């Protein structure tokens, strides 16, 4: 890590419920410590459109469910030194991937009940992203450096993994799937 | 395979004779299932319940055993059956293409296409068995033609070609 600048931390949100980010906010007063130790340069909680370059640590919540996620995840990977799969959806697919048990068309039909909508969604108009046939985990698409399971991961475990990676150490193990 | 003829009572009698021959021992379950399938062509829940009672076995055990083995079937057999041998020798000689074409052909005319493990004719690979008759050094075209021919022979009269 470049010692001349504060490490840059980003969090991103793909196909998930944002519960992991809520848990992130549960860091409460530790957020202040974190802001001191790292420059939180991008997050869905902030008003920045583009994922920045030269990120040191990226926490990515959610699974890869559509073409936007696919593109965004590849960008995040290219621009981040360390990528952490943040929470069960990112790590296992979790609830987001439960639709993999059924063909996509059946899911859409059940959701919208209108064949016209289902047809439209197979080649949706801009800016609606096309859904992938199958929901993917982050590591199905890109190289992932660390995994933080949990639905959501506890604030403690989030703090621990960030501080460990910032310190260049191996994060603690023994984390559970689920809650 | 067409189930043996005869009425229900006669079949049951034949099955009971097989069970009696094995002294109604649970050890004979597989033999008894073979005998039942020979009589009826496939195994129904009713048959398996009957066997379970007679051999004094839990029903779940009877179904557990029956479903463990490939040869037992639980639905009535299709009128025509083609088996493409998927033994190594046949595979190396192109059985996968044979299977593809048989599956396409079967979509057109009531055949059930299954795969077999090795019919003992590796020297004549690839082999397919149509309604019990083996075809050696089979080609996709020859197999589809044979399936059409057998279908037409069994279903005389005009029909729409698919």
């Amino acid at each position, binding site marked *: 890590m470049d010692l001349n600048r504060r490490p840059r931390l980003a969090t991103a949100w793909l196909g998930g419920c944002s519960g992991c980010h809520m848990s992130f906010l549960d860091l409460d007063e530790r957020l202040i410590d974190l802001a001191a130790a790292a420059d939180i340069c991008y997050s869905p909680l902030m008003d920045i459109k583009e994922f920045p370059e030269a990120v040191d640590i990226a926490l990515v919540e959610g699974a890869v469910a559509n073409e936007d996620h696919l593109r965004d995840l590849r960008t995040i990977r290219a621009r981040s030194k360390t990528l952490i799969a943040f929470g069960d959806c990112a790590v296992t697919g979790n609830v987001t991937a439960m639709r993999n048990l059924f063909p996509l068309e059946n899911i859409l039909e059940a959701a919208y009940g209108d064949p016209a909508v289902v047809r439209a969604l197979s080649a949706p108009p801009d800016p609606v992203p096309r859904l992938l046939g199958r929901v993917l985990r982050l590591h199905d698409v890109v190289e992932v450096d660390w995994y933080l399971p949990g639905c959501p991961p506890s604030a403690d475990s989030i703090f621990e993994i960030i501080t460990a990676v910032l310190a260049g150490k191996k994060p603690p193990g023994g984390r559970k799937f689920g809650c | 395979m067409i189930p043996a003829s005869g009425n229900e009572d006669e079949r049951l009698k034949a099955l009971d004779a097989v069970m009696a021959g094995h002294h109604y021992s649970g050890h004979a379950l597989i033999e008894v299932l073979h005998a039942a399938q020979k009589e009826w062509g496939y195994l129904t829940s009713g048959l398996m319940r009957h066997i379970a009672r007679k051999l004094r076995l839990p029903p779940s055990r009877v179904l557990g055993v029956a479903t463990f*083995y490939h040869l037992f079937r639980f639905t009535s057999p299709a009128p025509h059956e083609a088996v493409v041998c998927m*033994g190594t020798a046949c*595979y190396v000689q192109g059985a996968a293409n044979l299977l593809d074409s048989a599956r396409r052909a079967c979509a057109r005319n009531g055949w059930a296409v299954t795969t077999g493990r090795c019919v*003992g004719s590796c020297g*004549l690979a690839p082999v397919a068995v149509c309604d019990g008759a*083996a075809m050696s050094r089979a080609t996709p075209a020859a197999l589809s033609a044979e399936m059409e021919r057998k279908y037409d022979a069994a279903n005389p009269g005009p029909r729409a070609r698919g």
Partner: protein
Amino acid sequence: MTPQILARAREAEQDRQSRLRDRILCCTVAGCLSSGAGAVRRSLEQEVERQGLGGAVEIAGTGCMGLCGDGPLIRSSKRDLIYSKVAPGHAPAVIAGAHPAMTADHPFYKGQRRLVLANSGRADPERIRDYIAAGGYEALLQAVTRMTPDEIISVIRRSGLRGRGGAGYPAGLKWELVARQKSPVKYVVCNADEGDPGAFMNRSVLEGDPHRVLEGMVIAGRAVGAQQGFIYARGESPLAIERLQTAIGQARNERLCGERIFDTSFNFRIDLRIGAGAYVCGEETALIASIEGGRGQPRPRPPYPPESGLWGAPTLINNVETFANVPAIVANGAEWFSKIGAPASPGTKIFALAGRVARTGLVEVPVGTSLQTIIEDIGGGVPEGYEFKAAQTGGPAGGCIPASALGVPMDYDSLPAIGTMMGSGGLIVMDSSTCMVDIARFFMEFCMEESCGKCVPCRAGTVQMHSILERITRGEGDPRDIARLMELADLLQNTSACGLGIAAPNPVISTLRYFREEYESHIHARRCPAARCRMHGEAAA
């Protein structure tokens, strides 16, 4: 049956056959039957009748003469000639001896030594008299009336016979283990569940010479002190089952099995058990579970079957070819047998030679014959325009032998040293048109379908290995896939509960050892060197 009656029956049948002008034997085994041997036999019978040769020329069935690829095969006993590719229209010429024929110095037969298949092509498997005329049941007579159980076991031990089922465990040791058990009830089981796809050795022996197997089993029963034998046959081989049923009935009628064999107090009953399609039942504890009427799931070992097998009783399990070797060993002695083949694995081995080779069929050679001799001299090499790539032995549990190892002697020790195994005798030749990754995928699919599902590494591990291999052959492989395959291979070998799971990774390990570049080409260049695999995005061939 008494010793005198056996001798008289033998002489009478030999005499009868010698007085015939000719005895024409038609192959009645699966291979030739599928190329029309049934119709040929009927036309020969009609021709004999038409020419009024009823008492002079006899048409009979016989076992496999080997060259299945050139079937139907017919043999004239008097002329000692084999006719190949015979059609029904050839009947008059065959009877007249005017049909073109092969002789014993045909390259296919030259390198062979037919002990187990001695009667195949010479005797009718459906007639016990034929077997007796060929000296059958003489060994049993000796074993029952002139030898003690210890003496029989000593002969088998000294002969060096190794189990022909795959691993080559010394038969004598196994027999001794069972004989030593103090138990009033013991069993002898013949494992005829030949499930290896691409192997039909056992099936041909059962279809072509069933009495040889029965005789071997009864001798084993006498040696180990068992009164009951079971043959576990494949439900998929109806002809073998039919022949066995006929043979058992005949032997029982002649008091060669059943009660008071040769008028002694020795009883040995043989029953047939018919499998219902499960490769895993070739594993001996699974086979036991299946004979007992259960799901064919392997049981934990120890205890091993010689101590606790069928219904907890000591049980001797050997395969068809092992039992088929026994009568000749007992009749001719251990020394005679131990001089055939390789010193550490004497005798012969039957291979089902198939795949990309000119002459395909059943081949019996002295153990230790080189692979090259089998493929090139006996088999006539790979088809023109192609290049030998590998031979696969041992089926889904085995591995491949690359061109650089063509000189390997086919025996129980040399093959494991190069990463494969003898197996039950499947020998598939592959050439430049065969993709080795696809072959690995093919065998993994087989193991996945045949896994009993009890233990996790085999049930779930084969699924994952198969999915990785499938991905590679689709051209969607990941650079980490080879490492993942090896990691899973290691897991299956170390933790699977039975031989199926332990051996399932073998074809992958073996093809990775010799043909790693084919995997790499699929993964990195998205190209199948054999042009076999349909790569992602490529148009259908």
